[in-house]
């Protein structure tokens, strides 16, 4: 499975009209990787052209932007140029999910509906799970330097249950390895996979300073 497959699967999965996915591996606005239809492409383009819109807001805040009715006053006030342009393009509601893990930015998943209305609680929960999956797949696809020890695509590792230690360990590895937060997370997962240890257990050992990783070789010290 690739991140593009997630884009196709999320449309029937949460009952939206279309979706787009852009990758932003170096914290930039990124490039469009996948769209399910022409409206999705227009929505992604519009925001870059107009310099405003839910995509840019979601990238800035690190949280989703849910606009269930682009024709209402709130959306109009929030995005005076984007909202009417998106309506003309054929969208009535837009939901944008930043693909982030803290300061790690992998991209953005955008959804739209041709009729107004919010995502239900179930649909929102499912959309977030699709977004998590796309995040991990994008990180896997972008981790050329991590070597063959990386976790295989298609199986997001260790996001089932939130653990603060995983985030702390990722932060510690940026220092130990002298790499970005994104690469530190890739290396953490690669180490867990290569040694067949749960990600949370590796993280706990790193935070307790029982384990250090070293640049170049993901080997135990």
């Amino acid at each position, binding site marked *: 499975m690739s991140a593009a497959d997630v884009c196709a699967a999320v449309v029937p999965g949460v009952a939206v009209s279309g979706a787009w996915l852009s990758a932003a591996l170096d914290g930039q606005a990124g490039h469009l990787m996948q769209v399910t239809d022409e409206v999705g492409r227009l929505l992604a383009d519009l925001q870059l052209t107009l310099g405003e819109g839910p995509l840019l807001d979601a990238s800035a*805040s690190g949280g989703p932007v849910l606009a269930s009715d682009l024709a209402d006053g709130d959306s109009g006030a929030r995005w005076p140029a984007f909202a009417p342009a998106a309506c003309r393009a054929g969208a009535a509601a837009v939901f944008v999910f930043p693909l982030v893990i*803290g*300061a790690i930015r992998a991209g953005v998943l955008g959804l739209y509906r041709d009729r107004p209305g919010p995502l239900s609680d179930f649909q929102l*929960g499912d959309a*977030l799970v699709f977004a998590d999956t796309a995040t991990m797949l994008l990180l896997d696809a972008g981790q050329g330097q991590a070597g063959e020890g990386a976790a295989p695509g298609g199986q997001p590792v260790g996001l089932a249950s939130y653990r603060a230690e995983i*985030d702390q360990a990722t*932060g510690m590895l940026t*220092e130990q390895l002298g790499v970005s937060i994104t690469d530190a997370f890739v290396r953490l997962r690669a180490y867990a996979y290569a040694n067949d240890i749960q990600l949370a257990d590796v993280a706990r050992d790193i935070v307790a300073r029982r384990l250090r990783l070293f640049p170049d070789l993901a080997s135990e010290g």
Partner: protein
Amino acid sequence: MDGQLLSETFVELTDTMVADFDLIDFLHVLTSRSVELLDVSAAGLLLADPRGELRVVAASSEAARLLELFQLQSDEGPCLDCFRSGRPVSAADLGAGQRWPQFASAAEQAGFCAVQALPMRLRDQVIGALNLFRATAGPFDAEVVDVGQALADVATISLLHDRSMRRTDTLNEQLQTALNSRVVIEQAKGKLAERLGIDVNAAFTLLRDQARNRNQRLSDLARAFVDGTQAIPAPSGSPRASRSGTGQPRLGPRPAPPRPAP
């Protein structure tokens, strides 16, 4: 209960909300004040993630074991029961019951005997819970429960504070943004702890003090530090000597925010 401390706490909390405040920092202060005011040993706030998990967003101490104990309740425990029922849940003696075997044994190992969970409610929706731990067994006073509930309500209001609540979408946006801010702060704690050779609890205190000194939002500084665009120097003197490890933020006011030009 100390009446003066109570009024000071509410003045401090509401004062903060009027300014441009950082949600995670605010909730950290709120849990710390809960400990002082309600005479409990530890307090933590958990928010419901739409993916179906309760997640710690703030605690009176950043000690890893305590965070873990709060987080355990995503599977079982008073917070989960409180979240599901929307009602306060109390356990006066964790050793006595078999209601939450895994949670009770972890809590006891950490030295806690009694626990109280209070719902964060917004109209008909429950969005999370405030959790109080005490080292001694016995029921919680009605006054403690009432004031604790008021503090939980203040936490709810603070979540909604940034924007108007006319849009139903806003709450979910704020929840997710808060949870991701918490992740950024954990990443920054780890990076700072490793760089300075201190523990993550001390790293949090330093990060928070630095944010206040620079008059910057905690999550913004945490993100800039992780991205490498802002540095955080070691504190003068021994890093372990100064307050680190207590997890209690100082009461002192933050520097006055810059006034908008007239």
